[in-house]
């Protein structure tokens, strides 16, 4: 019993330390975002501001169209996520439930595309989008990202675990493929879809390089681009405002997590049990 309680204390210490290490930067950002600029440098480690102020947030919203920027980010992340999910779902359904010529080869090509680095396609994508007049438009950011082979791979894996006979049973009852997708497949793979979707959303939300290449005017900026304005060489480093942008950037993903947390955690534990 003694060793058990010792081990218990040890593990709990490790867990608490880990949680602290994970959470500290967020608390630090939150505290710093309410500090006046001098305090940021004079009082670095004290998380709680001595003279808390909203000036950083007020200044931020005065200097930048933050609502517009947040909306841009939200629109890009939402459309990209929905399109990726839709295309991945339909493609995975075709790969799992249909036999067609060249299926294995096409699947191989799709999966191989996962391993092409972003930097390879970045410039061609930029040139194509510019020639279509989509430079400096959030649609130019969205369009090259509307499909993702990782989504096909992940959804394909989950669909395979559904017994084929469920689909056959529906087919024999004269149920159309679109109905089978909606009535049978979708409910059965919903947790996996949710976690894949959230992953896509957060990735797109945090994306920096591609939007920074496409978006020139502040009105079409996304949140990561706004953040870089305060910590880059050109914009000068204004840490307290940068932290305020970070906190604004965090709000929506955090809300999403709170709403969908049961699916996210559910997916991880389910895959752990299997």
């Amino acid at each position, binding site marked *: 019993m003694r060793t058990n309680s010792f081990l218990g204390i040890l593990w709990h210490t490790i867990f608490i330390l880990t949680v602290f290490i994970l959470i500290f930067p967020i608390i630090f950002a939150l505290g710093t975002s309410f500090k006046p600029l001098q305090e940021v440098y004079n009082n670095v480690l004290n998380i709680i501001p001595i003279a808390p102020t909203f000036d950083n947030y007020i200044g931020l919203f005065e200097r930048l169209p933050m609502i517009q920027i947040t909306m841009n980010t939200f629109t890009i992340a939402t459309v990209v996520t929905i399109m990726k999910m839709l295309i991945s779902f339909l493609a995975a359904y075709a790969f799992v439930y249909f036999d067609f010529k060249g299926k294995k080869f096409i699947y191989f090509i799709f999966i191989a595309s996962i391993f092409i680095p972003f930097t390879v396609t970045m410039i061609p994508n930029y040139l194509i989008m510019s020639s279509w007049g989509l430079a400096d438009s959030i649609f130019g950011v969205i369009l090259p990202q509307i499909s993702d082979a990782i989504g096909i791979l992940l959804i394909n894996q989950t669909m395979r675990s559904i017994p084929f006979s469920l689909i*056959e*049973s529906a*087919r024999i009852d*004269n149920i159309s493929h679109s109905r089978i997708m909606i009535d049978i497949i979708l*409910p*059965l793979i919903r947790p996996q879809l949710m976690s894949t979707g959230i992953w896509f959303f957060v990735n797109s939300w945090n994306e920096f390089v591609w939007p920074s290449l496409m978006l020139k005017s502040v009105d079409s900026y996304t949140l990561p681009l706004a953040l870089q304005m305060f910590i880059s060489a050109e914009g000068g480093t204004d840490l307290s405002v940068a932290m305020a942008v970070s906190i604004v950037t965090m709000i929506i993903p955090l809300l999403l997590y709170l709403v969908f947390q049961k699916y996210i955690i559910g997916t991880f534990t389910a895959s752990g049990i299997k």
Partner: protein
Amino acid sequence: MKGIEFKNVKKAYGDTTIIENLNLKIHEGERLILLGPSGCGKSTMLRMIAGFEKITDGDLYMNANMVNEVPSGKRNVAMVFQNYALYPHMTAEENITYGLRRNKVNKQEIKRRLDSVVETLLLEPYLKRKPKDLSGGQRQRVALARAVVKESNFFLLDEPLSNLDAQLRVSARKELMNIHHTFKQTMVYVTHDQIEAMTFGERIALMNKGELQMLDTPENVYNRPVNIFTAKFIGSPPTNIMDMVYDNGKAIIGNQSFTFDTKWVKHIEASNATDFVFGIRPEHLQISKSPLENALKGKVKYVENQGDQYAVFIDMANSEVIAMSNSKDWNTDEVIFVQPMADHIHIFDKATTNSIGYPGV
């Protein structure tokens, strides 16, 4: 013809041929069993009827219509799957009515069919439960109910009882009989279990390696097997098969002999075969410690308890022969007398493995 007909049907996956050339007529309203060892093509046949597998060559007729290109959903077929294929996220009731609802059957009609099947299969207490909260037997009944409410002409069953324990099988068979009695569908039932085949089938189609071995009533399949495969596959323990030489009214088996009666002598001498195989079921061998007339001698190897009877394994003429006995009182290495019952002998042509037929038939 109504019912189902396979005409010169071939099924191949790439270079692998599963069924070479199948001709089979399934009568309207009958209970036909597709029986055979695994890999014999019986499930493939069922899946061709269901429309899940394309036919490589030949024609399949249902209700006198050629259905080669007709999709599953238009064949008016109901099916019970081996794993039941219940939708895990739907309750039993939703599972049963899903197909009807999606095919826009009107609500009163759905309710009428549901009520009737729920009453027949005693499903009332389980309607609101999801499959994971049902036992194996209950799931099987829900799957059955889902197929029954379709009220199709054709009812396909793919090893529907193989996941049930022995007691549940008996009651499930009874339910299936009731359903067939009520709806008179053409039932095609795939199984590898000969007891199910014997008890449930009106006719049995015995398959092996993609070929139809025998198509007949359970009685004839048991009593008059057309070839060695049928004789050995049907019956447990299997039919004893021994090489024999025919010599002037006698079967020479090893260095012993058995005298045929005149009916058999005439019949064997009339056949074209030159080499023969002697077959006799374990239940048609009489064994005794004291000499029996027209009997062969063998040495007891061991005795197996089969519940109601004992299977005695006997070393005879260099082959193993099984005989059934009511007594377990047989000592290992004891020499005993083994007498085949003359009315239950099967003789096969060694070259073709086909039966040479039976005297007076």
